[in-house]
């Protein structure tokens, strides 16, 4: 993974000193609260319901063992012994004190981490496919691109006061595991007819109150043009994006209002005036970054591991976990293991400091010292030898981290909701917990198969409910929580926004409502058909009928 050189290290240290100074200027009154707010946000410090919250960047979801141990320490020393992974693969602490923040930043800088631009109206932490470098369907590893963008977007003098937040995601594979079409800019690495590698550039995706799927504005962008092209997109948006209404300020609204073609035309006109080579990173710099992501020294192993097969044969629980939580590795004899942070009854994405240490140790011993965070709020050990899987699983069992539900109905994405978030209109974590309990039975989960439920506690949609196969949006209706249920969302390369099934239901009725939807699927599916495939084939009607059946007798 990427390591800081002297320039990166100095940059982050100076950023810490700068924030310290900003806090001091806020305290002595030279900055008023209005002026301080964007400065603290750009450093990941939110004022939440109960306390300040600190959001730490995990660029493109990659962490080393050492970094995770440092997060464990911070969780213990400055929080309540745990942290929370978000849908943008960042880590959030919900209880730090403002005066401790500079100290926490120092600890982060010690391990080459920071909170830069994890919030605010600027270019946010860049995300990428969590199976980067290991997926067989990959054309090129997206992480060097993501790292280049991380650096380029850090403290960009021109683009730090945008109309609204700006999120970029990169995938290098045919299968989109990074939800790139739900981002302000989505980049897909591809090969053109001549065999050259470049990017498909998609703009204007986003969830929130006006969910939109990004439109392609450039089918093939040569790699060397990346930074100049991004500069052109951001400049057009910075100059012409709406600033009159916060809810209409994302680039998706501009793309929608003027049309993708016109947006593309303006970007190309700006791009044509730029001196590309003067903006681009030179090839040696690109190569320098890419070298950090070169494939590790894999051992030559047989594809089949006798030890793994025997363990599966002898231990049903392990076999189940292995069938659900492993992702195929492009190198024979290896696998990527998903560690679910969705234990039944847990808050999705939460992890205790103790568990962080267990995971860090496992990564150090068995996964070349590296781990990944997924947008589904789970952790991945990316470079595991199949021979080692059984012992890893045993250690996960001891740590309460061996839930076999990756991609299943209880692998629920949920935002913090009303338990923590000051914008929330309803709770989301308790809904996730209730659903997890309802569908806890392992056999039943397996029978239902792949099904993503995503829950947001308000219209801002941090829980990505629009692109959940089943989406749940918590609203407030005359003082009562009311949950709106959507069906048919898709977060992959076939991205789609789910459709609303009917009127909202109270919290207590959510599990029954989901149950009825799932029953329709089980009753109508054909052999091997997944939930989302069945929804596409059957359409909304049968699900709607079942959903409405009981829900809305009396209002």
């Amino acid at each position, binding site marked *: 993974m990427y390591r800081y050189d002297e320039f990166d290290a100095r940059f982050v240290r100076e950023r810490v000193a*700068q924030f310290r100074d900003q806090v001091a200027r806020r305290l002595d009154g030279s900055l008023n609260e209005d002026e301080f707010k964007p400065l603290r946000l750009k450093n990941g410090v939110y004022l939440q319901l109960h306390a300040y919250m600190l959001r730490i960047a995990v660029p493109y979801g990659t962490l080393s063992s050492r970094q995770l141990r440092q997060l464990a320490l911070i969780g213990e020393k400055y929080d309540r012994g745990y942290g929370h992974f978000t849908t943008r693969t960042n880590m959030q602490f919900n209880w730090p004190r403002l005066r401790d923040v500079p100290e926490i930043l120092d600890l982060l800088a010690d391990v080459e981490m920071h909170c830069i631009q994890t919030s605010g109206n600027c270019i946010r932490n860049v995300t990428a496919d969590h199976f980067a470098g290991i997926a067989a369907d990959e054309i090129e590893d997206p992480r060097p691109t993501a790292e280049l963008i991380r650096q380029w977007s850090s403290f960009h003098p021109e683009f730090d*006061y945008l109309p609204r937040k700006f999120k970029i995601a990169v995938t290098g594979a045919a299968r989109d595991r990074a939800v790139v079409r739900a981002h302000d800019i989505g980049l897909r690495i591809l090969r053109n007819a001549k065999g050259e590698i470049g990017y498909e550039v998609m703009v204007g995706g986003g969830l929130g109150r006006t969910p939109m799927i990004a439109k392609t504005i450039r089918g093939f962008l040569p790699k060397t043009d990346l930074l100049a092209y991004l500069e052109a997109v951001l400049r057009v948006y910075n100059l012409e994006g709406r600033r009159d209404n916060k809810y209409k300020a994302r680039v998706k609204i501009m793309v929608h209002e003027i049309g993708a073609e016109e947006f593309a035309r303006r970007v190309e006109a700006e791009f044509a005036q730029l001196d590309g080579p003067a903006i681009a990173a030179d090839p040696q710099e690109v190569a320098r970054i890419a070298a950090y992501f070169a494939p590790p020294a894999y051992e030559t192993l047989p594809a089949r591991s006798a030890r793994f097969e025997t363990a599966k044969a002898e231990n049903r629980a392990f076999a189940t976990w292995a069938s659900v939580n492993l992702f195929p590795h492009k190198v024979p004899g290896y696998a990527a293991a998903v560690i679910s942070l969705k234990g039944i009854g847990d808050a999705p994405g939460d992890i205790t400091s103790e568990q962080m240490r267990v995971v860090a140790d496992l990564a150090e011993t068995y996964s070349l010292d590296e781990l990944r965070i997924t947008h589904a709020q789970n952790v991945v050990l990316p470079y595991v030898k199949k021979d080692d899987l059984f012992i890893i699983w045993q250690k996960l069992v001891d740590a309460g981290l061996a839930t076999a539900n990756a991609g299943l109905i209880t692998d629920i994405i949920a935002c913090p909701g009303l338990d923590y978030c000051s914008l929330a209109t309803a709770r989301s974590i308790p809904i996730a917990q209730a659903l997890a309990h309802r569908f806890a039975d392992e056999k039943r989960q397996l029978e239902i198969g792949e099904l993503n439920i995503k829950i947001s506690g308000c219209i801002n949609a941090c829980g990505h409910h629009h692109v959940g196969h089943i989406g749940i949006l918590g609203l407030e209706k005359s003082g009562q929580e009311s949950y709106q249920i959507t069906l048919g969302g898709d977060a992959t390369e076939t991205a789609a926004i789910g459709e609303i099934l009917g009127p909202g239901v109270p919290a207590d009725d959510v599990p029954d409502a989901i149950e009825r939807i799932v029953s329709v699927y089980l009753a109508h599916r054909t052999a091997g058909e997944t939930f989302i495939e069945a929804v596409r084939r059957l359409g909304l009607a049968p699900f709607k009928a079942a959903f409405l059946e009981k829900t809305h007798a009396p209002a």
Partner: protein
Amino acid sequence: MPLLDRNGLKPDEWTISEDGTADAPRILVAFDHLKDALSGNGRGRRIGVTIANTLKSDALVPYLNDIDLVSIAFPSYGDGRGFSIAKQLRRAGFKGTLRASGPLIADQFAYALACGFDEIDLPQAQAARQPVEHWLKAAASISNTYQRGFGEQNILDARRAARLAGK
């Protein structure tokens, strides 16, 4: 209103004259009056223009050789359009003075300079709360950033130089 550049506070030598009629050696006119002010400029006055941040930079391009200063309004510090306009004017070849006018905060000084601004024209109240030392300190707080084409130095070129020098 207090004016500062990378060296600190400086006197403002420009006289605001929206319609361009003032008899002063340096006048700052509104964009709408720029054409008239320039065509009737037999008196050897220097002319600058104040623009809103909604003006397209293309609209100014025909005049760039004839004016000495462009003052771009920042209605609030959170509205970053002026940074992009400055960048475009520099690209179009404007060699005169670029002024950012409005309630910016000290922490934006480095950005303004990197985008091509020379000076900041601050409201009195802002300047009173944020003395010039804060601005100079803030401008120097991050010694080097990653973008090429913004200011004199950047990390990418520094790395390249280190490479060429054999590290």
